[in-house]
Every structure is written in C-alpha cells, then in structure tokens.
C-alpha cells in the first residue's frame, strides 16, 4: 500500500464517519438537564447523610468522673478493709 492508497483509505473513513455526525444545532446549546440532575443528586446525597446521622446518633456518654468500669467488683477482695487502714500498735502494747 502506498501513500496515495493511505490517503484514499482515510478519505473513505472520513466520508463514512462524516455521515454519522449529529446535527450541529443539537450540540451547540446549553445542557440544563444534566446540571439539574447533578443538583438533584447533591440534594439527595445530603438528605441521605442527614438521615443516617439522625438514625445513628450515639447515646450521650457519661462523664469520666462518674463512670465506673463494669468489672470494678473484681477488685473488691475479701479482707480489703485490713489493707485500707493502719493497725493500732500502740493500743496493743499497753
């Protein structure tokens, strides 16, 4: 195949694709529908997010100063009061 044949092949392709071109007037104008659909999608997204936040709102957390661990009872051992006070040695010596 030579340059001339190459030109001819491209000419054929151009003619065949030129017939498929849409009308100029159809493309040379604003496209409001898509902008509206983008706006609608954005509004929908915000609504879904607000709903999700409302449904999954966490319960109020207790203050750290009043919070007690549920396993605190394990720390209460028998005879713990003996460890929490000093023995009265003076009284025993008399």
């Amino acid at each position, binding site marked *: *195949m030579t340059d001339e044949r*190459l030109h001819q*092949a491209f000419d054929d*392709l151009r003619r065949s694709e030129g017939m*498929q*071109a*849409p009308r100029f007037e159809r493309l040379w*104008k604003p496209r409001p529908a898509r902008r509206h659909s983008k706006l609608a999608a954005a509004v929908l997204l915000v609504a879904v997010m607000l709903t999700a936040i409302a449904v999954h709102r966490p319960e109020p957390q207790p203050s750290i100063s009043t919070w007690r661990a549920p396993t605190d009872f394990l720390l209460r051992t028998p005879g713990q009061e003996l460890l929490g006070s000093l023995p009265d040695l003076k009284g025993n010596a008399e």
Partner: protein
Amino acid sequence: MQQAELERRIEELHAASFGWALSCCRRNRQEAEDVLQDVYMKILDGRARFDGRSSLKTWLFAVIRRTAAAHARRGALHDFLLARWARREPDPDRPDPHAAAEQSQAAAALIAALRTLARRQREVLELVFYHGMTVEEAAAALDLSIGSARVHYHRGKQRLLAALNGARR
C-alpha cells in the same frame, strides 16, 4: 471575533470536529458526542476562548483533545469503581458496537490497523491524513514539538502500512 462569526466557522468545522472527537474517544460515538457538546459548552460560556494565536481548527482540535482526555480520566475511574463493584476488569479499548456495524470493510480494516499504533502516532496520522493538516499544524494541536511530531508521523506511517499490508495478505 464576533460570537455569530465564531459560531458560523465552528459549524463549518462541525463534521471534522466530530471525526476528531471520534478519534479521541476510541471511536465511541456516544462519548464523542458528549465530548463535542462539552467543548461547545466551554466555548459558549467562555471557559475556552479563541485568542487567534493559531488557526481556529488547530485551537478547536486542541480543546477537543484535552476535553476527551478529561472525559477518559473520569471514565477510567468510573469503570474501575464499577469493575470493583461488579468484580470484572474494565476494558478501555472496547469498540462501540453500533459504530462498528456502520463501517465499511475498508474503513473497519483501517480502524483496526490504527488501533495497533501508539496513541501519539495515531493522533498525528489522523490529523495529517484524515483532517488534512500539515505535520506542523498537527504538532500545535497536540502540544508537541515539530521534531517529535515528525518522528511520530514517520514511525506511525511505517507501522500503519505494515499492519494494513499484513491484513490484506
């Protein structure tokens, strides 16, 4: 240039612009229409402005190429996310079945041969042979140096001729 004059000249270039948009969109007709409409929107609302530094055709083709590249990036992301969701691989070179059905056999052979070229080689050859530009004009439309465009032109032509001659055998 007045708006009415610009519109008239762009309308004269409409068929060629659509052909170039097809080329930039791997011959996907729907995508090419979307790209061309986006380009016209950019011109209408002033985001793309012709400043007369090159010919109108060279400028318009450069805008089409950049817009198609932006569309392709968005499309690739969309395909990637869709592929992850559907657990299938995206196929960026999938031809448009409707367009393929309308092509003649010779045109289909040329398109198949063009697909074997590197992107830059294909773009330079299409601008020169399909759109009748000089290599210098093609370089300007593609933001390439003239030397680089010449190399793409010669190597691309050799590969294209080899592919077409191979397909005829």
